[in-house]
């Protein structure tokens, strides 16, 4: 564990020593949710989650989803760059003998920390406008989805060009959460279930709008997270080593 611990400490220092980045982890979700909370009206709407149909206001229906989306977007972009920015140095470190699993574990832990910061910042601003019914599950689901997209970002970053990767990580969470799995969407196509938002995202929205935890969706979300971790570990290892 010493090697992983050392790699983790180095990863945290490498990225936490960028004040602008650390600030953005908090400021961007906060601005996003805060401003939308002010702008979105309280007109009555019907929100759909798997367990229930809820009559509520537009703000109460969409703001939790937007808070999750904000954390997910931060995590996705961060995952991409956390991986891509240090590929050369990581390659040299791997050549020096650091096992790729140690480096991956360190990076995944750092990404999770970034996603946690963004999730907490998002939720903190969200509760100013509307409080989720189950705050802990809401944060946990948001975190799971954030880390999942962060790992997807890592894969996208090493497989595609950075610019292309950012484009993908801009649209994928937005299409997933804001469109396909929005609580305002009544009947998304069945194939949209392949998106991670169908599971951890829906668990988050469910936790925000109802008192019944959607453990099934959360569990599948965790499974998606595990799958994304495996794919990311393989993709990054191939990118770092020859």
């Amino acid at each position: 564990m010493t090697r992983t611990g050392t790699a983790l400490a180095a990863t945290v220092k490498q990225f936490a020593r960028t004040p602008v980045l650390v600030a953005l982890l908090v400021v961007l979700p906060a601005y996003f949710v805060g401003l939308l909370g002010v702008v979105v009206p309280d007109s009555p709407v019907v929100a759909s989650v798997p367990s229930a149909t809820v009559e509520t206001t537009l703000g109460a229906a969409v703001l939790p989803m937007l808070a999750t989306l904000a954390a997910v977007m931060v995590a996705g972009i961060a995952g991409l760059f956390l991986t891509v920015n240090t590929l050369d140095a990581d390659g040299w470190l791997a050549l020096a003998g650091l096992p790729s699993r140690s480096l991956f574990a360190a990076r995944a832990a750092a990404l999770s920390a970034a996603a946690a910061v963004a999730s907490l910042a998002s939720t903190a601003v969200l509760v100013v406008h509307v409080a989720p019914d189950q705050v802990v599950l809401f944060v946990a689901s948001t975190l799971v989805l954030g880390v999942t997209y962060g790992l997807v970002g890592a894969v996208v970053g090493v497989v595609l060009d950075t610019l292309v990767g950012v484009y993908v990580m801009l649209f994928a969470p937005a299409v997933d959460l804001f469109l396909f799995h929005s609580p305002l969407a009544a009947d998304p196509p069945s194939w949209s279930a392949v998106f991670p938002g169908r599971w951890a995202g829906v668990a988050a929205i469910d936790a925000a709008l109802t008192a019944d935890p959607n453990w099934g969706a959360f569990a599948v979300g965790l499974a998606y997270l595990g799958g994304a971790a495996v794919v990311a570990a393989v993709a990054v290892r191939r990118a770092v080593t020859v």
Partner: protein
Amino acid sequence: MRARSAAVGASAHAKSVLRKPATLAMLAVLPPFVVVLYGAAMASFPDVAFLSASAESYGRMGGALFATAFLSGLVGLFGTVSAERADRYLSFAGFPAVVLFATRVVVSVGVAGLAAVVSLVALVGAGTGVASLPLAYAVLVLAGVLYSLLGVVVGALVPRELEGSLVLVFLADFDSFLSGGVLDVNTDFVEFLPLHYPHALFTSAVRRGTLAGEPLVPAVAYLAVFVVAAGVAYAAATGRGWSL
């Protein structure tokens, strides 16, 4: 002399953008993806303020607009960040900053033009009839140039790819969510979003084949403001290294 410098500069900047296979592939492949996905997703929204039969095509139109705009925005951002030191060195070597900036704008228009073609072809190919292709194309290019200039501003102020991408993504998503009409937001604030007027113009060009009666003047005014803002930010970045 300045015209020749501008041509040389524009050619160099264009090559630095286009000599990347992944960027070219992205130009061709991703906008159609976005158009189709947006259309499929919007079809499941029951309460938007138009006939449900056109929800899918409305989604595709939004997808075409956003796909073009954000691709151009990212190219503007990344181009500015990656070339910031080189442009500063060029400026030091004697290339007039205003000409350098003009070349960036020219390349932005070119990239927006290419992205707009792909998005428009995808829109038509997905089954949405376009009443006026030239007008629709022009509006897409306008949206692309707007976002490309926004990308230049962000890239000049935050000259690092990670942080700049985060800022641009959050600006872009905020814009797309509110200007696309998915959320029925009734506030004057929405009129300040970069894609608010292009969205109305594009819808009119696609559905009615005309821009008459649409807010063309505010859209062009917005473009002028962005050109000035991008010029100031760019000049500061290449001249004095002023950035976060």
